[in-house]
């Protein structure tokens, strides 16, 4: 309903849509600010990514405050590669990083000013476990809520504000990497009160469809202040890609079961050099689904095995697709909510290998 206007009290002077100015207490509210520069811990690693047979650059970043949560809700990252590292063009889009050796973000600019297009733009930042397009806005809304449907190899899946990867590939060639139960504590039951838009936790790694070059990669992270052009904190670190040889490729998992029975995912042994393996399962909901799309993940270990998707929150008509990631670092071990250390253990180089999606060859998806 439209607002009716308040009468003005004329005596005492001018007041715009309010009455007399007497009786007001007008002192700025005191505030205390955290020392971001000295209390935050930043880690940055690079490695190779064997993405379904093609080798790209992999990155892992952790940026945490003493309690293990993300250090800041907004920051601007820049990765500068060694000589020979060249950022490719994106089909149908412009990117000022194209042809350069840096993957950058766009710092805050005067509102109304057209911001230069960069890889991370103004939305991408470094968080507790990986990069994500989750920088805060003036609405203050938590940027975990689901985006509209984002096409990927898993067609029709909508993901949280996470990067489908590898960045720079065509959308239909990319995959989401969201950690769900049982690899992490289940957040799906209604009684737990998780916000409806939350889809899962970060896997820590973000791949870029760029040919990796051995050498030193510089990482710069700026945290802005409330004044455009000035920073609250600036972090600089480096990571070395000692070898551009990727991990071996891995076959995709086999999804079985369904038709009223439990959904199973079967995988073979992990490739040599991989110390951890995660199976990602996307549950693409039917129209009657209670939760819409949701993600599961299994911390598979090195040996082959069969895993069953928890059935408690499944709905008849749901459709399942799975893929596997093997890595030479503990993906789940460093992930939240379990790991709230300021600096989770990471090797000097972080390599991943990503399987094709199931089922193989392409066929009708398994339904529950």
């Amino acid at each position, binding site marked *: *309903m439209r607002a009716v206007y308040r*009468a003005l009290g004329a005596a005492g002077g001018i007041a715009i849509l309010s009455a007399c100015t007497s009786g*007001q207490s007008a002192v700025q509210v005191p505030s205390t600010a955290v020392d971001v520069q000295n209390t935050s811990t930043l880690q940055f690693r690079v490695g190779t990514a064997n993405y379904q047979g093609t080798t790209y650059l992999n990155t892992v970043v952790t940026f945490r405050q003493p309690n293990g949560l993300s250090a800041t809700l907004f920051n601007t990252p820049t990765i500068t590669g060694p000589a020979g590292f060249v950022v490719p063009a994106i089909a149908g889009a412009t990117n000022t990083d194209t042809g350069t050796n840096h993957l950058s973000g766009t710092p805050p600019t005067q509102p109304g000013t057209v911001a230069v297009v960069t890889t991370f733009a103004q939305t991408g930042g470094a968080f507790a476990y990986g990069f994500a397009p989750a920088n805060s806005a*003036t609405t203050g809304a938590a940027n*975990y809520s689901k985006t509209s449907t984002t096409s990927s190899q898993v067609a029709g899946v909508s993901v949280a504000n996470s990067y489908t990867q590898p960045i720079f590939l065509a959308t239909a060639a990319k995959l989401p990497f969201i950690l769900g139960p049982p690899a992490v504590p289940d957040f799906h039951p209604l009684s737990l009160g998780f916000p409806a838009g939350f889809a899962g936790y970060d896997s820590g790694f973000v791949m870029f469809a760029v040919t990796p070059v051995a050498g030193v990669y510089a990482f710069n992270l700026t945290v802005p202040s409330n004044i455009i052009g000035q920073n609250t904190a600036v972090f600089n670190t480096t990571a070395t890609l000692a070898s551009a040889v990727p991990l071996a490729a891995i076959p995709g998992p086999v999804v079985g079961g369904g038709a009223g029975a439990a959904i199973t995912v079967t995988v073979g042994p992990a490739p040599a050099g991989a110390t951890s393996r995660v199976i990602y399962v996307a549950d693409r909901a039917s129209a009657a689904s209670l939760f819409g799309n949701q993600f599961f993940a299994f911390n598979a270990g090195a040996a082959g095995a069969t895993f069953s998707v928890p059935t408690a929150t499944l709905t008849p008509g749901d459709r399942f697709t799975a893929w596997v990631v093997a890595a030479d670092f503990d993906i789940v071990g460093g992930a939240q909510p379990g790991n709230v250390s300021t600096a989770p253990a990471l090797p000097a180089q972080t390599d991943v290998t990503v399987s094709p999606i199931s089922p193989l060859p392409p066929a009708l998806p398994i339904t529950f």
Partner: protein
Amino acid sequence: MLNELTHRTKAGLRSALALTLLLAFVLCTMPSAFAQVITGTIQGTITASQANTKLAGVQVTATAPSGHYVATTDSSGFFSMNGVTPDTYSVSLSRTGYETFTVSGVTVVQGQIANVSTALNQTLQRIGRTQSRSTTGAFQPTQTSDTYNVGTQQITTTLGKQGGNNESNLLASIPGASFDSSGYPVLRGGREYEEGFQYEGIDYTDAFTHQFTNSLILNGASNFQVSPGAGDASIGNVGTGSINVVAKRGTHPAFGQLEGNFLAGYFAHEARGEYGWASPNGRYSDYASVDMARSSRHYGAPGADPLLIGQFFNGRSYQWINDVVNNFVYKFGKDNNQSAQAFYNNTQFNLHLGYGIPGTGIPYKDTDAFYLANARATFGLTNGQIQAVMPFTPGQQFLGDVIGGPNQRNAINYNQPDETMKLQYSISPDATTFLTAKFYKINSVSLFDFPYDSTNTVAFGDINALQGGTTNGVALDGTKQLGSKNLLGFGGKYNYLHPVYTQRSATTSLLAFGGGGNGFEAADFYRSDTCPFGSTVSPVFNPATSTCGYITQFMPAYQLGTANCPGVNSPAQICPAAGSLPFAVQLPYSDEGTSTNRQDWSIYLKDTYSPTDRLKIDVGFRLDAANWRMPACTIQWCLPTSFTTDAGGTPTSFAFNYDASTSQPRVWQPRLAIAWQATRNDALRFSYGRSVQFPAIAQVDVTGQASAYSAFANIPSYDVNTGTTAQFCSVANVAGGPLGAFQAPCSSYAQQLFWDNQAAILGIPITPLKPVTYNNFDFSYSHLFPHQVSVKVTPFYNKSFNQIASTAQQIVKNGVPLADINGNPILGPAVNSNLGKSQIMGTEFLLTKEAAYGLSGSLSLTYQNEFSNVVPTSPSEDFFPSIPPASLQLGNLYRVGFLSPFVGALTFQERTRSGWRINPVIYYNRGYPITPGLITANFVNGTPFNLPNTNITNSTQLGAAAGADRYVDPRNPGSMFAPNIAATRGTPDANSAGGVLTAARFTPVNLTVEYQSPRNPRAGTIGAQMFNVFNQIYGLPGLNTRYQPIATGIGGPYSGYSSSANQVQPTFYGITNNLPFRGGNRAYLLTPNAIPRTVQFYYQLNL
């Protein structure tokens, strides 16, 4: 019982000036009879001092400049004079064989009893004896209800000088009254519309919103009375308290004053004059007062301009006030026992703001580049299409016209007039009876003319609104003295409220008819061959192929061309190139109105029983009633309380289970008050009263104006989406949700536009509401100290129910409350309801000191602790209260956010015999609640909980405190029960919203220094007033709702920016809040909005 003066004090009363000052001083609380009427009573018992027997046949004469009354004591020695005009009287008592005894300084105020009881000495030698009586400020031994009377002297002390007109400041100096967080005066914790304003016994509230009508300008007041709480039975429909002003009357000899004043350093001056005269026999009297003020000054501190308002020196602001009062009384009949009064008041208040407008002007919205960019993005139209269909802002003359510039039109224009007339007839058929009949009319319709809104969003840009109405009424009141112990009061009143309300907006028109409602009519207004949708081939409209241009077959389309865009007013304006605008018919205005009138009537009966001079008991009953003349509740006008559907889910039948008391409320209100003078210097008082306030018409009915669409009445409706008759003409579609499936065919295109506007802009048309009811208790103890110092302490408690508050309630379909897949209730639209509640307890404290010379003044303190189920600091909490549905179900109560819990006012003066007067006035408040709170109410899976208040629990709940100050880790948010807080605003907070107060302040502080020669008072008075001595210009810190969190205590650079993508303006167009330097990037915003320290010089000439 008389309070005799000491010899020392008697000596001080020799000068007439001293006597006048003493007799009319400070707050005088006297035994209460009725406050609705404007006359008082003098009564008493006369005894023979030697024999201590009651004396019959004593001639009692009361004389004052404004009146003369005579009575004779009866067999019990008792006398009573009713219908006495408020003034200060000399009461003379004479009987053969006894010395004549005169009591001077008997001050009569409206609705109260002045007691003059004494003993006469039997003697043959003494001619007479005179005794002066002083009013005793806070000490009134036989006062019954909690009432504060402010005479002219205290008005002068509080406002700094005689003729001061700031009614807000005066109210705030009285216990029980305070400024709310918006700066409005409120009584005993009420909201802005919950007080009753009266002048000369007439309701001075507008017919539509129940706000004051006189712009809080005090002019011509002889007495100012405030009754926090219920008051006596003659007071009704005044919510949490009433303010009653009585006008001055002419006197013999005459009195008058002329004044001129000016503000140093600004264009601001005032001329004021008053004159009151009466014929020697008192038959004719007239009082007239005129107050005219003009000012033009910038906001903020001079020399510093944080808003960059004054950087364009040719920015304008202008305020002018004219206030006229005339009070004519003709007395006639035996001993002037009848009178006819004609009272007239006309207040004109005009405010124009045009800060920062460049000399070349600023464009109206339809040629404003930033507005057009937003409109294009929102509606997918081109600039030309927007300009072709969007109506001109009222007052705009052509496309390309500008605000400011050569036509000098200001960005904000405000006019708040009030015209009041009263005719009253009074008669005292005998000494014990007084009857009054009055007819009155109040006409107050404010104009809000805002051709330029500060935001450039597509919603609610320009506004041109009329708001107010007329009230016509008659009232009968009477008093009858029954014996010596009972004073009976009775009366009745009838008011007819006819509101006037329109609100036209050109920019809102585009929103209403461009897809914000149920249809997309804008496309209908283009001629088909230039239509943005559908066929562009055939110039003939074909419903089968053309999806727009429908209206153009009924009305000739036109094309705006460069002839209407002279391009001389502003180089920044946008003018269409020749032929670039499509042929189109302009949309009608989005307009608002109301369909409701109301009849109020009331009756009351009360008795003041005085078994002894020390004990008074007031018992009364009052009935307030109303007839709401509004459309009956059908699906056409009201939200159903439940509905049933057919098998397909389409609503088929509706229930409107609104209480019968919403259309014809009848509320009985008992009133009980007791006053007991325990000792010579101590008095106790208790009162209970139930009071009522009917909802304002604005709270019940805001419907569109059918007349705005009358040009389309003969055109069939047309839904551009279906190509057939539009089917959304009822409340069902306004409500949306499952109710929206109800098909209500539109009978015409006019009806279609009406309902589209209702759905997009106005919401549910009619919301029947019950009256708010209050139960008020208060108790007082007062004491008289030596040297005319008195103290009164009044603890109070007030509980109300059926308070008006907006909330959204769960939809009930087929008897089942609806819930979504998560189990959370599916809510209907937010509408006003009677689900609000509040209770307040506190203490009022008053200390007064009277003195003709030397130090005198008052200290007023109020402690108030009010709880309500309305969330504190929620938007417009004090005017549009709302309750989040989850909080409502949980039954949460909060300390209100619009009151300071402790306020005070110290007003005093030092008057020397050499003619100087120094008069400081200091206001204090403990601070106002401002924080959003650590806890909020929200639904989780259908169950309401009190949860941590974070950015994942705060933003979606209706009426939640604006913003949160805790932010979760977006990658690891945790649950709503145990969120992972990654950052906060870094400011202190408490569990409840408003749990942390702003800093305590002494504000404002005003100082007056004045001189009047004691040897030559007719030479006049000169003085200087300094306002806002400590130059406090900033308003309350407001939570920055557009805060970008980065880390704890660190806000991002986008904090304070509008969500509009087009927010950077190359030049400052006056009032806007899109710019970063408006204190905007901190957790709280501090905005200057007070007049800086100013000095006013004045000269007053007594006539």
